[in-house]
């Protein structure tokens, strides 16, 4: 069996940034596995601009952003395999993959970085009533058809869901000559970024109907139309608000789910809030030596933050390899064992949380989502591995105006920031300082919450 120090599953923005960062730490034995025919991941089909403002202080298109990292990977001579699909990952970090040139092969990795990204919620996840005619696509599929393959999925379009890809595709389809009739959003607020509502909908006079959903699909062979209706506070359609739209295409932009089939095979514990792995401050999962970053961990709004997070995961993976390489080979054999401090499975998660007080002595703190906060990444902090600061990313449950985000350890406040508006569609962050946390110890939890002022 081949052996590599770090195997990175996925050659999109997360995998690329993780590889570069690990290599910058001096790690030479890295391999990136990518299932598409080229590196860059979903950025290759995101031809619109607006990427890279945080990282490069300029507005790049998706392919340009990807190229910055791909060129660096090439320059540093980091090995990668394209057209290579990972089929399995074991808790012992044996990666099973297949490619047209190599067939099926296995690699024993010392550390694995999960960077598989996410997947779109399909029609099946929505329980839309009606026949299953052709013409219903996820927005990302349509994006690939139009931007990469140069084919138009249809001419008269209704979009369900106001996620960013849906908004981007409303503009893209319009530019390509389609008539986008309406974007319907189930929630009373948009799931996309404000700038996208302005430049993708308002610029082209496309109406956005909040608190609306599709209640009927018309057509048998090909879609002929949909019926929209308003929904009440519980998301139930309000009678007599139905409106019919004729269309040949329905695009779905109704959420993204981290793609964790491989993680599950490896026994990595997943969070029910993010659908991604539970990780600590080092982006290490519940399985020793398996790290996660990017959209496989939690769905991001901005690629810049994916790159930043992945660079941290890459650095930590390189450190892990350095540390475990120093150990005797006998000891290293055991590194595939599950960690004692993180739950082995989702079921063990609750049991683990129940045993929390025991962890006080070991310097492990749980990072908990408090009032108004849906989840945090990371959700565990090992004090011994914390740097000067720790950045906690989170999403709010609903829209909050003129509110504060606070972070507490025990009774002590570590962070407070006031913002005009918090929306679930935009990832937030809070930074705590080691110094402040030390003053709050002993504590067994760190809680992040929204306080309405």
């Amino acid at each position: 069996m081949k052996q590599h120090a770090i195997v990175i599953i996925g050659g999109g923005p997360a995998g690329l940034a993780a590889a570069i960062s690990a290599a910058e730490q001096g790690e030479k034995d890295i391999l990136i596995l990518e299932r598409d025919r080229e590196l860059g991941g979903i950025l290759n089909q995101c031809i619109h601009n607006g990427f890279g403002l945080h990282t490069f202080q300029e507005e790049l298109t998706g392919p340009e952003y990807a190229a910055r990292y791909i060129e660096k990977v090439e320059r540093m001579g980091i090995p990668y395999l394209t057209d290579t699909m990972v089929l399995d990952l074991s808790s012992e970090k044996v990666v099973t993959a297949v490619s047209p040139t190599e067939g099926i092969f296995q690699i024993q990795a010392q550390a694995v970085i999960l960077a598989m990204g996410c997947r779109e919620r399909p029609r099946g996840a929505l329980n839309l009533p009606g026949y299953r005619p052709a013409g219903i696509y996820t927005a990302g599929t349509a994006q690939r058809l139009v931007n990469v393959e140069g084919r138009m999925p249809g001419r008269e379009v209704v979009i369900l869901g106001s996620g960013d890809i849906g908004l981007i595709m409303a503009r893209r389809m319009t530019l390509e000559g389609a008539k986008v009739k309406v974007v319907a959003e189930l929630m009373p607020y948009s799931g996309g970024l404000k700038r996208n509502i302005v430049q993708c909908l308002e610029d082209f006079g496309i109406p956005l109907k909040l608190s609306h959903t599709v209640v009927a699909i018309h057509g048998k062979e090909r879609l002929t139309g949909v019926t929209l209706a308003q929904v009440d506070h519980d998301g139930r359609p309000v009678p007599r608000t139905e409106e019919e739209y004729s269309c040949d295409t329905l695009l779905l932009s109704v959420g993204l789910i981290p793609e964790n089939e491989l993680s599950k095979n490896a026994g990595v514990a997943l969070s029910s809030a993010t659908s991604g792995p539970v990780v600590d401050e080092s982006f290490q999962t519940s399985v020793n030596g398996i790290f996660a970053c990017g959209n496989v961990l939690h769905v991001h709004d901005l690629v810049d933050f994916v790159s930043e997070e992945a660079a941290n995961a890459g650095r930590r993976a390189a450190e892990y390899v350095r540390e475990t390489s120093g150990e005797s080979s006998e000891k290293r054999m055991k590194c595939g064992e599950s960690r004692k401090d993180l739950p082995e499975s989702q079921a063990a998660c609750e049991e683990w949380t129940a045993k929390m007080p025991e962890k006080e002595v070991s310097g492990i703190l749980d990072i908990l989502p408090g009032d108004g906060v849906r989840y945090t990444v990371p959700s565990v902090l090992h004090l011994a591995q914390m740097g000067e600061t720790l950045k906690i990313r989170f999403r709010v449950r609903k829209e909050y105006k003129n509110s504060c985000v606070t972070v507490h350890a025990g009774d002590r406040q570590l962070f407070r920031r006031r913002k005009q508006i918090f929306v679930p569609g935009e990832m937030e962050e809070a930074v705590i300082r080691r110094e402040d946390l030390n003053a709050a110890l002993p504590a067994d939890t760190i809680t992040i919450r929204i306080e309405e002022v």
Partner: protein
Amino acid sequence: MEKKILTCIGCPMGCQLTVELDGEQIASISGYTCKRGKIYGEKEVTHPTRIVTTTVRVVHGTAQMVPVKTKEDVPKDKIFDCIRELKEVEIEAPVRAGEPVLKNVAGTGVDVIAVKSVEIQQMEHGIHSSRNL
């Protein structure tokens, strides 16, 4: 005095800007949190512009399409003219990212450049086609 409320598109922050207009003249701009926001506010009420991104067809390339963008902003009301002109463009592989695809698009004085490289498709030796027979 006319008051316009805008959402800045300079970055994903989406700051809400308030622009007060005295006829054609901008009396005041508030709500921006960076230089870019102020510039956007001024431009958006006087002569709104956008970067246009689309794709053009590639001949003999490893990809069907190559993504392109206007090198600078073009007037908002010229977006569809740019797209229409670019529909007629076909480019021969290889394409290098950054190379001009069309000069002075729609009379805007702005060039359109490729944002991705596309290699030449190597000739296949008929293995796939004969198998399919």
